[in-house]
């Protein structure tokens, strides 16, 4: 299945890109995807994840066509 991955702020700096389209196996969780994308990278301790513009927990199972975003804790206002 196909998913769309976005990275923001310090996570984008670490990943070296702001987005990528991926073909993945079915039934990957958000956490499993993050682990596979960051093998060998020094990742921040705290990373939030959103799917289709909603915060999800790390065990959220991805579906075909999902947009998943990884980013650090927010600092607006």
């Amino acid at each position, binding site marked *: 299945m196909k998913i769309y991955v976005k990275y923001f*702020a*310090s996570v984008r700096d670490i990943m070296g890109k702001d987005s990528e389209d991926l073909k993945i196996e079915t039934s990957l969780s958000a956490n499993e995807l993050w682990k596979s994308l960051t093998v060998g990278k020094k990742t921040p301790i705290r990373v*939030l994840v*959103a799917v289709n513009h909603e915060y999800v927990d790390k065990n959220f199972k991805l579906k075909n066509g999902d947009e998943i*975003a990884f980013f650090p*804790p*927010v*600092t*607006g*206002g």
Partner: protein
Amino acid sequence: MKIEIMNEKFDPWQSLVDYKKNVLQNNPKIGATSVFVGTVRDFNDDEEVQNMELEHYPGMTEKYLEDIVNAAIKKYKIIDGLVIHRVGALEPTDPIVIVASWSEHRDNAFNATRDIMEALKAEAPFWKKESTNNGFRWVEPTIGEENNIDEI
């Protein structure tokens, strides 16, 4: 309700006057207006801040701001709410955000404005990158402002 993400410098007070004039007009039910304006400081964590870059997640930001204002409308029965937030390049003294709530009585306006602002800081996907004498740094959330959102 008004939710807006601004790429350019804006005058929060003029935005307030315009919204009152063009949208709320002379609504006679309004007895209280509560306003919060956040501006860029020239210091943070004992370092001088020269300027700042504010990034956001288009689409998700607007959705969360709408949800946050709708929650305040429901909880405090406010008549209306407004949030305008800057992104892009900012300098000290530039306005970052304005939150305004209109209600029949002051308690609800005060509480709604505070709730909206606190929820914005905890949930809305914005990130600040400061330029200091030691280079760039991503701002970390202040202790006590952290949210309950699950982390990886």
